[in-house]
């Protein structure tokens, strides 16, 4: 390879690396909510979801909040746009990545402010602004920290039938064990009768 080409290649590589580092600045975080949409029964007003985050500062207090407005909105104001009673503050860890159970609310903001997160078919009370898309926002060190925050939108889905009280992770092993025991006794009975 000619020296000029090598120089050009190195310059191009540096440019690519530079752009890449600009696109993903150090400290950029991510957050997901599971399940999402959040399935609720017709009368259910709260649900536990798992909020998982990455990219937060190591060993630094984490703030997880439920907001009515996206952080990409220039008018976003955490004190006015996020629920005062609905946030959690788990301890940070060395990885800056972890998850925590978060109770999301369906209905008016539990602090009594005039907004709420609703399923599409819900009727908001008079004077309460209905948001069918709300956001889980995470940040570190201070709830006011806008430098390392991120968010994910979430919605509610209302199930038509009853949600089983025991999740599948419990029901499946129980059913499997019962089936195995049934098989065992069936074979044993056949063996005895022979």
């Amino acid at each position, binding site marked *: 390879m000619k020296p000029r080409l090598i120089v050009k290649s190195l310059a191009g590589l540096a440019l690519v690396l530079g752009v890449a580092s600009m696109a993903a600045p150090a400290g950029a975080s991510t957050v997901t909510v599971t399940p999402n949409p959040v399935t609720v029964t017709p009368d259910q007003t709260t649900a536990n979801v798992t909020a998982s985050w990455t990219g937060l500062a190591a060993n630094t*207090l984490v703030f997880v909040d439920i907001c009515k407005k996206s952080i990409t909105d220039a008018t976003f104001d955490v004190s*006015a746009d996020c629920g005062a*009673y609905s*946030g959690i*503050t788990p301890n940070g860890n060395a990885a800056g990545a972890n998850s925590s159970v978060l109770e999301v609310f369906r209905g008016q903001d539990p602090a*009594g402010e005039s907004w709420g997160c609703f399923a599409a078919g819900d009727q908001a009370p008079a004077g309460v602004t209905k948001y069918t898309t709300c956001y889980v926002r995470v940040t570190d*060190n201070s709830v006011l920290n806008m430098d390392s925050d991120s968010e994910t939108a979430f919605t509610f889905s209302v199930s038509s039938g009853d949600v089983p009280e025991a999740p599948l992770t419990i029901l499946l092993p129980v059913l499997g064990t019962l089936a195995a025991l049934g098989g065992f006794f069936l074979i044993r009975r056949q063996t005895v009768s022979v």
Partner: protein
Amino acid sequence: MKLKSLIGAALVAGTLLSGTAMTSMAGAASPEPSGWDDVNDRVVGTGSDTTYPFMQRTEQLFNQATGCDTDNASPAASPATYNLGKCLTVGQNATNVLGNWDHDVFASTYPTGSSAGVVALKNGQVDYARSSRGPKSSGESAMNFWAFGKDGLVMVTWGNRAAGNLTKAEIQGIYNCTITDWSSIAGQAAGTIEPVGMNASSGTKATFDSYLGFDANSGACKKSLSTGAYPFENDLKPLVADTVLSQDNGIWWMSFAAYKAFSYQRQTAAAWTVDGKSATAGTIANNTYPITRFIYHVTKKVDATAAAASAEITGADGGSAGAARELTEFMCKPSASHTLNDYSGKSNYIELGAFYTQTGFIRVPAAEQTNGICKLVPGA
């Protein structure tokens, strides 16, 4: 009648008439039984460290709130006639009753602790007090405690001690020195526990004492700073800087609000769950977290009081006492009764809401409000 007598009589009559007119104007125009006396009083509060940042912000907001048109003429040389910034008594728009009518000026002095603040108020040395504890069982019958927010206490460790869970019995055992090694706590590596005490005047200490059922500074195993002094509440810096205190075996308690809001005070503190419950705004609001408390603005009852379930605060009409009553009403009135801030254009209710976020507190939950958005706890 001699000319001198006539002039004298006219002056007296004029004075009486103008006095009557002024009185009647003040009476007619007075927005409410308020601290409106046309004087922008200087009003001072002291006490709690925990509520200091919130009250400083609130005082500034109230100082900015709308009020009367002021006399802006250059002051005369004599202080006796100084009236710059006082209300004009003629042509007032007295319908604006929602802000700071007299443009009274409020300031908080540096923290001395809740109890010291309440005593200073009782002694007449300040006009109101900040307190992060409720009234004592006696000796404070002349005071009204206006809870304007709610908080919790978190148990914290720092250094390399990983946070876990503590039961109330374990916390009591640690502070009465019957539990002395971390190995007695589930999941913890061994090490001699160093339970750190706190400034005796602190409301945060009073709340913790009440939770424990005894004085947290009384155990033989309790620690102070190597200077011999107990640390001021909520500030971990002196504990981290102390070369004698163990960094991995210490335990302390903090305001949850301060823990959340002020990372410089928090340092590397990590909160423990108590009886399996995490401190969150929600668990504090619904009292499922075991150590909750209200935070208070304290006035003399004669200065500010309220009928049951009323957001109308009555009491002193003028001077700094009336001004203290007006501030109380400002803090406790619901959203609809607030005006816009002249500088931000936002409702002062929204501005106050931002202060709760900035300082980590939450508003008093609706179920616990008694007067406006506050909970009034009369002193006994």
